């Protein structure tokens, strides 16, 4: 067996095991439960897929401009998300894979080995996209006929192109700004690319039409006027998705050529780049200069440490930036509403409450579970309650720091809504923190990416309570009586989560 074939098998095995660990939370006994859960989840996903995409099943070539723009934009959104995931995967290969030293010290031909690794990234990105797109394509096939199977081909082509571009972008970043900054910038770039397209459409919709709906832009006359002619290459992905086999083959060929070119150019440089990244990993960064030790209680010492670590956390920077990006459309909406009062202003409240819950969940994991010196804190002369209290305070203070300016701006425009939003932020953040507390497991901060695999229940509970509190806040403003039902349901989810949590057992 050649070294390339052997390495391809090795990569596939690793990818499969990583995926399995992600699905089962690292517990092998759960494999059957995970498979059943996945099948049920995939089946259930057909319902929202039908609601979202069912009405497009009857589309036929030639498309009118409005439909072509919506379909092409949807494919572009998928491309942006895959590109984001691929950039993340490439940086992980450079910085986090423990086997680079072994590979680079082996007598295998590095260009071949890294070509396979590039192909593995492309395969995993396309594979994940295929899994996620299956319910949507199924709905289109069931409603509109077998020609929609071509959409799977488009997903593969888009995945291959996204992986090729991600590798080129990441290695270009290495050359331009060096390994020290690439990790952080690539993470931020991945976050911006992932969310940027939707947010840009929303901003355009708010500024032009005073609505948060991105479809307002896509289906507008202005968009149709600027769109290229029907014969343009821009519409190829849409035509291919509709079942134009010739265009689909061209698209697949183009993406394969793109990946091949990237492999040829960048695979030989992959080793140098990886070596630079690992060399950076052992280089020290200068902290701030010496200054006098500060006075304060033991809890203050703990809070100071947490704030310092949060401020120096690259993940947190990119995530906070993403949360803030999501807040740009509602903030713009708020700004527009100063001159043009609108009942749609109520939409801002759930967005803010939801963002607060999500950010609090991440922060709570980092401060409560992600304790790099757990033994040190456990052997310090503080009661465990004091330690936890100090950590929760850090989460809530940070949330207050991020969301107070937005709530304050809202208070000028609509004080009752600001009060409801503030309560929603507080309750949402507290709920997410409580869930992280009940499901806490000792881990390194660097394991943040894996936090969602340690407990599926905690992940879903955190998401559902965030959505629940966001809905309750919105309903409090619009239909207070219904808000009581929504609030009660969210409390019930929270109570059930507590009942099932390992801390209670």
């Amino acid at each position, binding site marked *: 067996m050649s070294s390339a074939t052997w390495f391809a098998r090795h990569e596939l095995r690793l990818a499969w095991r990583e995926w399995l660990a992600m699905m089962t939370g690292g517990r092998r006994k759960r494999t059957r439960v995970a498979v059943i859960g996945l099948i049920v989840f995939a089946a259930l996903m057909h319902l929202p897929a039908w609601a979202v995409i069912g009405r497009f099943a009857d589309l036929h070539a030639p498309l009118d401009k409005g439909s072509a723009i919506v379909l092409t934009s949807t494919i572009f959104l998928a491309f942006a998300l895959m590109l984001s995931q691929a950039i993340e995967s490439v940086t992980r290969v450079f910085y986090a894979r423990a086997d680079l030293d072994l590979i680079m010290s082996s007598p295998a031909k590095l260009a071949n080995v890294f070509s396979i690794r590039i192909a593995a990234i492309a395969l995993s990105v396309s594979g994940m996209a295929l899994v996620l797109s299956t319910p949507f394509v199924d709905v289109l096939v069931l409603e509109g006929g077998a020609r929609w199977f071509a959409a799977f081909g488009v997903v593969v082509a888009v995945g291959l192109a996204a992986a090729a571009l991600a590798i080129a972008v990441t290695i270009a970043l290495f050359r331009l700004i060096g390994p020290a900054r690439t990790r952080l910038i690539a993470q931020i770039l991945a976050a911006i690319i992932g969310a940027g397209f939707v947010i840009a459409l929303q901003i355009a919709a708010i500024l032009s039409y005073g609505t948060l709906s991105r479809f307002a832009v896509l289906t507008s006359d202005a968009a149709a006027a600027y769109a290229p002619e029907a014969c343009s290459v821009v519409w190829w992905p849409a035509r291919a998705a509709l079942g134009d086999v010739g265009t689909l083959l061209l698209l697949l060929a183009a993406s394969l050529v793109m990946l091949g070119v990237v492999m040829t150019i960048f695979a030989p440089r992959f080793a140098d780049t990886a070596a630079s990244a690992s060399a950076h990993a052992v280089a020290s960064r200068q902290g701030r200069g010496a200054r006098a030790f500060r006075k304060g209680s033991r809890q203050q010492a703990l809070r100071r440490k947490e704030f310092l670590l949060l401020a*120096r956390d690259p993940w947190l920077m990119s995530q906070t930036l993403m949360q803030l990006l999501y807040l740009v459309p509602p903030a713009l909406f708020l700004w527009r509403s100063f001159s043009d009062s609108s009942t749609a202003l109520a939409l801002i409240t759930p967005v803010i409450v939801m963002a607060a819950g999500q950010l609090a969940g991440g922060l709570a994991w980092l401060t409560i579970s992600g304790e*790099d010196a*757990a033994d040190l804190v456990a052997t310090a*002369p503080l009661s465990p309650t004091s330690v936890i209290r100090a950590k929760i305070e850090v989460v809530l203070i940070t949330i207050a720091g991020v969301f107070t300016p937005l709530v304050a701006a809202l208070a000028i425009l609509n004080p009752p809504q600001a009060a409801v939003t503030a309560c929603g932020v507080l309750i949402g953040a507290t709920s997410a923190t409580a869930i992280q507390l009940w499901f806490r497991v000792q881990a390194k901060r660097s394991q943040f990416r894996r936090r969602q695999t340690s407990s599926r229940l905690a992940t879903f509970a955190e998401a559902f309570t965030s959505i629940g509190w966001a809905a309750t806040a919105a309903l409090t403003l619009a239909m207070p009586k219904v808000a009581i039902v929504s609030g009660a349901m969210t409390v019930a989810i929270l109570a059930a989560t507590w009942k099932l949590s390992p801390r209670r057992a």
Partner: protein
Amino acid sequence: MRGLTKRFDRLAVDALDLTVDAGEFYALVGPNGAGKTTTLRMVAGLLEPDAGSVSIFGVDALADPVAAKQVMAWVSDEPMIYDKLTPLEYLEFVAGLWGIEPKVSQVSAHELLASLGLGPHMNERCEGFSKGMRQKVALAGALVHDPRLIILDEPLTGLDAVSARHVKGLLGERVRAGCAVIMTTHILEVAERMADRIGVISSGRLVAEGTLTELRQQNGHTDTSLEDLFIALVDVKAEAA
């Protein structure tokens, strides 16, 4: 500690009795899985014993863990430090946790880092440090609050010969100043050279204890090394099991 017992899937520590005096360096040696780390983790308050008691300078560590922790320090073989903090920031944090007056802890932190050869690196973030450097930062953290009992689990792992000598020197100074030190080690030469008393643990039980001379006498040898004694003791225990 009296009758200290801990069971996981099997009995890890079996009714262990052990006393370490102030100003004494005690080395706990034993084969892998003998129960050394479990014993020390119970003393440090990181693990709850199933039975038994731990008294630290007259404080019941199980009844009043906060008071017991105030006078002790724990150093594990895996350095417990924060990558994103500098050694100086780390020591400020540790001193703050133990409630040490900043004026005192700042001087002590600088002295400790200098004595461990970390002076030039005290304002660099720990993320780029080697394992040995990280271990030295962790050790400085354990000493910055001037503990009366120091518990060390394989503290010399990853240290080069010069660093190991620095660490041994620092620990020796602390012992002479009246501090009690309990240390586990696989390096029997260190135990032989540094420890006032040595305890040999196997399958969760203390199979021998005393000074090196006493251990030799107990085993009927007068000039064997600790390594030979250790192998003889552990082999006998393994055969008996």
